[in-house]
């Protein structure tokens, strides 16, 4: 029988000159394993984390689709069962114009994006015998959310499966780096659904909220697609107030509206009010002033506004209200809503500081105007 009590630990782990074969194995085997299989081990560890994220994205994707279908079935009156058609819309893709020759690329991008929007709108209309613009915009927004979540899930899953198939650890690194940001966006989008379904204002609506109140008792007209204009006088200055047409979930077309105003009037300044992404460490709902066109999106609208301003030598001033991605697309927080009156008084101050009596200023409230009237 073996006597384990007589086991000499010092001899087993001895580090003296006499080579111990067991000690050698303990050191050398892991080194060999890590040299040849290090990447696969790292891939295994990282893939566990990514798999969890993909599962979550899959839940977000299916939940957003279910929410959309349920909303349509419960609140609207579809001609036929809309499930199949909605599933088709979710898979629609947009091929962006080729940019090898950048000349005229903005026009091409604008055309592609607007064609897609118009097509989606018409397709949604075709699902119902009668649908109001308010509901149409709501369904379109919910469709955009569901389709974006489907796209994020597809891309992340593709990158993960490719790395796993090729057993290539470096391929998974970019995914590991961007995943937290993608998850933040995905979480924000899924949390945005209740606000848009209930027609509530979102954080991004602070610009339209400020301008909407300024134009409350003025006469309003539709100046471009889903965009409202009101003209008021303030301290012997003429103000052209612009915002998307509320309370629909839309951002309107402020670039087209500005073009239309410029062709008929001499404008001396443009003031834009928008929500802006806060940097880490910055306070939410803090207000900052700046110079240049404050408008997000794909960039075509900003280009158009900058082009008009440059052509007519009009300065653009901007006021932004800082917020996180989640705050921007979910129900407006109390802190952001509380800033509306403060921002409005800052707009009036900016007007007085940057214009003279008799001059004309365009004030644009940029953002989604869901739940905000004018």
């Amino acid at each position, binding site marked *: 029988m073996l006597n384990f009590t007589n086991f000499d630990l010092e001899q087993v782990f001895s580090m003296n000159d006499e080579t111990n074969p067991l000690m050698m194995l303990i050191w050398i085997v892991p080194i060999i394993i890590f040299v040849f299989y290090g990447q696969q081990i790292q891939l295994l560890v990282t893939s566990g984390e990514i798999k969890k994220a993909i599962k979550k994205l899959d839940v977000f994707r299916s939940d957003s689709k279910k929410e959309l279908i349920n909303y349509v079935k419960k609140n609207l009156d579809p001609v036929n069962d809309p499930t199949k058609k909605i599933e088709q819309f979710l898979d629609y893709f947009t091929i962006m114009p080729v940019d090898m020759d950048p000349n005229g690329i903005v026009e091409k991008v604008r055309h592609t994006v607007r064609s897609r929007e118009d097509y989606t709108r018409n397709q949604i209309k075709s699902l119902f015998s009668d649908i109001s613009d308010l509901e149409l915009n709501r369904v379109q927004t919910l469709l955009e959310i569901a389709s974006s979540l489907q796209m994020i899930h597809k891309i992340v899953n593709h990158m993960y499966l490719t790395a796993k198939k090729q057993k290539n650890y470096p391929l998974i690194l970019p995914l590991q780096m961007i995943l937290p940001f993608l998850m933040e966006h995905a979480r924000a989008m899924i*949390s945005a659904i*209740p*606000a848009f379904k*209930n*027609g*509530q*204002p979102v954080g991004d609506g602070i610009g339209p*909220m400020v301008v*909407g*109140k300024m134009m*409350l008792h003025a006469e309003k007209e539709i100046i471009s697609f889903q965009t409202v204009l009101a003209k008021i006088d303030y301290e012997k200055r003429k103000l052209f107030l612009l915002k998307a047409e*509320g*309370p629909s979930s839309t951002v309107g077309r402020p670039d087209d509206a500005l073009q239309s105003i410029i062709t008929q009037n001499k404008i001396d300044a443009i003031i834009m009010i928008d929500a802006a992404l806060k940097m880490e460490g910055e306070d939410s709902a803090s207000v900052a002033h700046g110079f240049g066109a404050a408008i997000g999106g794909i960039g075509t609208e900003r280009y158009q506004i900058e082009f008009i301003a440059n052509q007519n030598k009009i300065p653009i001033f901007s006021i932004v209200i800082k917020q996180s991605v989640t705050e921007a697309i*979910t*129900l*407006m*927080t*109390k802190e*952001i*809503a*509380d800033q*509306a009156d403060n921002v409005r008084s800052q707009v009036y101050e900016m007007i007085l500081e940057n214009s003279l009596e008799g001059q004309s200023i365009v004030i644009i409230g940029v953002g989604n105007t869901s*739940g*905000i*009237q*004018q």
Partner: protein
Amino acid sequence: MIFSKEKITLAYTIEKCSKCKKSHKRDFANGDILFSNSSQCTFCDGVTIIEQIFGEILQK
């Protein structure tokens, strides 16, 4: 997560009377739209206007 608290966002509406300027906070109701006429003021005979709609996070 085991230790993270569940967060619920509660939506509220603030109505302000255009006559007596008194504000009143209540739960958000479907159909509430910012700057629309809301109800009869409880303090005077004025009409209230929806001044704010916002969410507050409740941690369970």
